[in-house]
């Protein structure tokens, strides 16, 4: 049942969906402390009360860009392998049921998105790309292989 509950958001004006069981909260982040010597999609550290989040820029990860230029706002908080992360998203629309469940991808998807897209989820007649947060902290595809 819970598997049909999704968070709907957008990154780089693409509509995405994340399984609700993967996420803990959506928060607006304060200051982000940058970290030297790490991959460009690792934006830095942010404090969420007494927790320290590693902030991941999903857009930068997908497109390989350096996201440090633009403003960080909303973040999806999740614990993955005992570490807390914040995943930056542009906007969040809703957390709701998608009765249709996960559909296979139709059409030829942008190669940048391909390693991350796990299917399509429909909401209000619009398709959303299903992403798994675990893919964004490890090398893409490795979690899928391991599973």
């Amino acid at each position: 049942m819970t598997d049909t509950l999704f968070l709907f958001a957008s990154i780089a004006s693409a509509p995405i969906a994340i399984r609700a069981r993967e996420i803990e909260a959506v928060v607006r982040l304060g200051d982000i402390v940058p970290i030297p010597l790490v991959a460009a999609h690792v934006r830095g550290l942010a404090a969420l009360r007494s927790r320290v989040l590693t902030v991941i820029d999903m857009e930068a990860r997908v497109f390989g860009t350096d996201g440090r230029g633009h403003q960080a706002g909303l973040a999806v908080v999740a614990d993955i392998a005992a570490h807390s992360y914040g995943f930056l998203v542009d906007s969040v629309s809703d957390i709701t049921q998608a009765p249709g469940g996960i559909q296979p991808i139709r059409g030829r998807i942008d190669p940048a998105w391909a390693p991350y897209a796990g299917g399509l989820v429909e909401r209000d007649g619009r398709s959303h790309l299903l992403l798994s947060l675990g893919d964004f902290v490890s090398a893409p595809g490795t979690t899928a292989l391991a599973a």
Partner: protein
Amino acid sequence: MDEILGEFIAETLETLDVLSGEVVAWEADPTDSSRLDAFFRFFHTVKGSCGFLNLPRFERLAHGAEDVLAAVRRGERIADPATVTAVLAVMDRIGALARSIGGDEQVPESDDDALLDALAVSSGGFEIFAPLPDPIGRDEAPVEEEEDELRVEAPASETPQRPAVATVQPTGNRERAPRTIRLPLALIDQLMNGISDMVLARNDLARKMRDHGVDPDLESSFERLSANVADLRDMISKTRMQRVDRLYAAIPRMVRDLTRELGKKATLDLDGGDVEMDREMIEMVVDPLTHIVRNALDHGIEAPADRLAAGKSEAGMLTIVARQSGNQIVIEISDDGRGINRAALVDKAVSAGLFSTIEAASLTDAEKLNLIFHPGLTTAAQVTSISGRGVGMDVVRANIEQIGGVIGITSIAGRGTTITMRVPLTLTIIPGLIVRCGELFFAMPRGNVVELLHQNSSMVSIETIGGARIATIRGERHSLIELEDVLGRPRAEQTGPRTLMVIRSSSGQPYVLGVQAVESNEELVIRPASPVITAAGVFAGMTLPDNGQPMLLLDAAGLAQVAELPLRDADVRRAPAAAPDTQARAETIQALIYRERDGTSRLLPLAVVDRVEDLAAAQIVASDGLAFTRIEDRLLPTLNTSGAESASVKSLRLHDGQDQICYLIDDVVDIIEVPAKLDVRIGAGRIAGLVMVGEAQLEMIDPFMLFAEAARRRGGDDATRPIQCLIADAEDPWMRTILAPLLVQAGHEVRFGQASEGAPDIILCAQASAAHSAGDVPVIALRDSAEPGATAPGSIYRYDRDTIMAAIAQAVRRVA
């Protein structure tokens, strides 16, 4: 039901842990019925609970063991080793079964019969499945729940409440154990996080209050709240601490089993079980400790016949001591076995191609011993199932170093080996230095920092050779790297000099790290950093200081690696005569450079210096050519006085573990590392020898001579014996109410009465007269006017405390 079952499993496993040590003690002294009761209760409890929980296998095993123990209690059977082994096997099986309920692992049931047979066989012909003892036979076991034990025999009448009561018994009845409750660790972690949140909120509030300005009334309320929060945080941190006893619990059993297997004998002595350390830390230390104990039994302690031949007692002695030393826990494992065979180690190392025979000859003893930590080297002639597979001490050292600890070894051939592990009190809270790097801040564990210097200090010279930067500090060359370069950050403009940190890490040579500035020194709660961060290779963890800004903890070894500094192994090959690893650094000692009052700079081993203090001139009392300093009503012998002191003077308080002396100096200059071996030995008077320090050579003071000198002055053995003071005028109220308490405070013993009684060291009286004197015991007369009158020559004014104290010390010395 599941909950009760889970509780049962947890209780059972925990009780087993506690009991495994007891069972060995019981074997050593089978007459100790209190121990027997503990086991009896355990099996009894298990049996009772299983009946209720419908676990027939547990019940059958527990019943068998209980019967045997009952027979022992009745005196029908003795606790011979075979019996103990059989009982232990049943305990193990119960443990395995309990664990298998939790997991999927299955223990074949058929094996149970073998265990029960073992119980029967070892019974030596007695009827073991005899009915439980009648009440008369059990009077040597005064345990409250005897009634319960009786009723166990009626399984049909089991009531639901009974097992629940019974499960509490094993812990509840142990009079030594403090009352405890069981809490899930997750709850404690949550609690800890909650407190951290509270601290952050408090800091935030404090900042806002500072910015806005609030009235003092509100501020004092806030202060109180703030102090409470701080206390609470300290208390919560303590919940993470556990007694080292937990670490010890499994050792007696292990020693017993191993000695049996190896055909050796050993007595085990565990000390310091009440020392507390972080529970995570305990878990990290279990494996290394187990390994070292195994090694000690397998390789250290000889077979009984060999021991007797070597003139030792048949049973080896294995001692494990834990103690707290500052913010470290020291665990020492010593055996009195054959010691480590250096020659065999060196042979192995040579045949493994680590160095040539010639190079091996130049190794110091400590270097040879440290070879034992080298991967793949073992002195074991043959590989046994217990140890000697070559995966050994190198792994142990790696594990200890991984948690920020240090491991050291000393060994005397034929006399035994001592291995010392020093580990931090806790993994999660470490003292750290906050360094600035542009607008970013990083933390460096203080344990890695040897010293801090300003770049423009006269002790430092920096040169660039072929692109490599070298910092020479007091004649020692170190690689120099800049934090900004390693992290790929721009160097910020700065006005003041940069700070150099001399860093030591477990994996390489010490190096110098240049940073923009060292901001502060804080206790940091360290959490693991996520893999995407540790992938950078220079961060060991992250922390959230009280200002709420996350910060990363630098990894000293990682920085060296990223900067591609030469590693330890490479250095060994290039300079085999040099220290093969950091352990050999123990060959240096820390020494204090100070300036004598005549202006000469000299060295003193830092270990004997207790503190540096300023003494007021009035504190120093010179009498009869000797000087003493009064510190808290004790008189410490004082060296280097220049007659009557007129101004306050700097003093080093030296201690030899028992006595203290004051050593007056002009000023303290620096603390440095010097070789433990002197460059030139002199051994004349106070000077032990010469040490090369940079461009100069300094005289090293011999503390032995200082203390010997002070002891000579003090005279006799009075340093250890309190001075017996006799107050002759027992009726004098001043003597009784003012003087006597003063003398007692100063550590003297005071009696009242006549001189003829006892043998006082000194007599104090209002007026010296023949009546008071007793042989050659010195008499001090105290007058009540400040000016010396003609009536009492040589008397001391009664409120001239310093002179009185000095006179007592001096008079006694004269007698001695």
